[in-house]
């Protein structure tokens, strides 16, 4: 099957920030494509350009064969989006928000009613369907936004951090539904998420973006293989010292330094741990924690961006709080 999204040298500069820096890649029709990166990497900016909400500074892109600058109307007919930031009408009820969407997207009346109820059931808001959104909690709003985004089954669906802050059961249910949509209706899905396990399970391919640049793009399995071997994570206050010592040993293939830990890429880690501990001990370096893992997507993320996703997790919530505060002012 062909490419439903083609991106060539796409660039976006805000006054001083180069948010998206000359990226090129394509997404195949029917793919579930994951877009991972630390806060401020440029994920939302990229999706906004593809969804015609922002004009690129430079470069080209097409969605469903339509140019995102010259054929905006056609692009908008091909897409749906669940935004990272809230976009509900708080003075309307849950049902009315859904209905508004269904009408704008020309979902026929009978089908509309039926699907709205089904989707509200999916996100467990059917009992609240006639309540005003302003009485909803953050998680309920999030669920409603997702349900609304799934109403019209577009060719390409952009999901920007859709499940952030939702409990695991709800997340599983929603992803199961999205998978069905992808398989049965052939909806191409582009998603960003901070849940690495989610991305790992769902995505056919993953792109990692950092500082506006694509630093890796492949299947999850291939990304992990590229790192190879095992990952030893050592928690210590003297990581620099430890690093300098271990650097001399060839069995340590590569290193990454983090706030309070050091990760080392090693073949057959089990046979090397004792040696590493001994070296640390001899040099009076205290080890607080030690763990051996097969590389996970998290390690891949770490490897390419130098940040753990956990360090990242807090911030979007903070952004959200900041937003709410700003709105209330």
């Amino acid at each position, binding site marked *: 099957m062909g490419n439903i999204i083609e991106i060539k040298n796409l660039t976006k500069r805000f006054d001083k920030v180069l948010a998206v820096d000359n990226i090129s890649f394509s997404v195949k029709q029917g793919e579930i494509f994951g877009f991972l990166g630390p806060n401020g990497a440029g994920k939302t900016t990229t999706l906004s350009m593809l*969804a*015609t*909400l*922002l004009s690129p500074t430079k470069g080209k892109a097409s969605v469903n064969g339509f140019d995102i600058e010259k054929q905006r*109307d056609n692009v*908008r*007919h091909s*897409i749906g*989006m669940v*935004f990272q*930031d*809230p*976009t*509900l*009408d*708080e*003075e*309307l009820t849950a049902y*009315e928000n859904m209905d*508004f*969407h269904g*009408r*704008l*997207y*020309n979902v026929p009346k009978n089908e509309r009613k039926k699907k709205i109820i089904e989707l509200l059931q999916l996100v467990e808001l059917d009992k609240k369907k006639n309540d*005003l959104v302003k009485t909803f909690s953050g998680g309920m709003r999030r669920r409603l936004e997702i349900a609304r985004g799934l109403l019209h089954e577009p060719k390409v669906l952009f999901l920007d951090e859709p499940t952030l802050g939702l409990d695991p059961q709800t997340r599983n249910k929603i992803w199961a539904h999205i998978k069905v949509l992808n398989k049965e209706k052939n909806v191409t899905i582009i998603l960003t998420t901070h849940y690495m396990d989610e991305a790992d399970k769902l995505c056919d391919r993953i792109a990692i973006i950092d500082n506006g640049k694509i630093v890796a793009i492949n299947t999850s399995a291939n990304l992990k293989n590229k790192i190879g071997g095992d990952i030893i994570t050592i928690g210590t206050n003297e990581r620099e010292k430890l690093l300098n010592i271990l650097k001399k040993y060839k069995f340590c293939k590569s290193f990454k330094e983090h706030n309070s830990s050091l990760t080392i890429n090693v073949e057959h880690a089990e046979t090397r741990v004792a040696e590493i501990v001994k070296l640390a001990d001899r040099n009076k370096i205290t080890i607080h924690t030690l763990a051996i893992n097969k590389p996970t997507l998290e390690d891949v993320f770490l490897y390419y961006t130098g940040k753990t996703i956990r360090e990242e997790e807090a911030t979007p919530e903070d952004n959200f709080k900041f937003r709410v505060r*700003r*709105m209330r002012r």
Partner: protein
Amino acid sequence: MTGAIYTLWLRSIKRFIRSKSRIIGSLAQPLFFLIILGFGLNSVMSLPGTGSYVKFMVPGIVSMTVMFSSIFSGIQIIWDKQFGFLKETLIAPVSRTSIMFGQTIGGATTALIQGTLTLILAMFVAGLTSFSLYGFLIAFVFMILIGLSFTALGIAIASKMEDMHGFQLIMNFLMFPLFFLSGALFPLSNAPIILKTIAHFNPLSYGVEGVRYGLLGTSEINPLLSFIVLVGFTVFIVILGGYFFKKVNA
């Protein structure tokens, strides 16, 4: 296109019906004006035609209600921007023009309902009991035009604003001057030449005069002229508002 216009209109109406306290609040102000100013100045004002100042004020107060309510409706778009809802509308497969039309017609409809409620109460307060159905229709046509044009004006302004900070400025330097310099409160024929001149450049004057002709049967500006000017203004400002709205970033 019509589907989208209807959808946006429906949303305006739903939000309007829900805001009962706001409806009552916005009825209080014009009635307050009418009672204090109208009865307070009734004895000292000399008027051509009707004679009663309170009656003279009714069309002005009704026009004011429609205008204020319309501009408020148009400016609502800034809230949509801040609450993010505008993104939901702008990303939908509908043209910006139809979104803008839907918003304009919705705002005008709610303004017209407010204006009508004010009209009924004001007629009662002022003891305006003689009127014709024909006259009412004329008044309504002018109220609709005021509603459409000033909602579009609100949208045009909102499209250029980032947040609600400038709102006070708009109240003080646009809405109140438009109202006070429109012949809503005093007859233009007796006014100093400078006021008269300014009023003739104020589109609301033609609205007030048109409504006045409909309700009282007399006016200082020829109703046909009022109609032509106001239609022209409406068309111009809807096009301008549509143009500005096309360039809005969510």
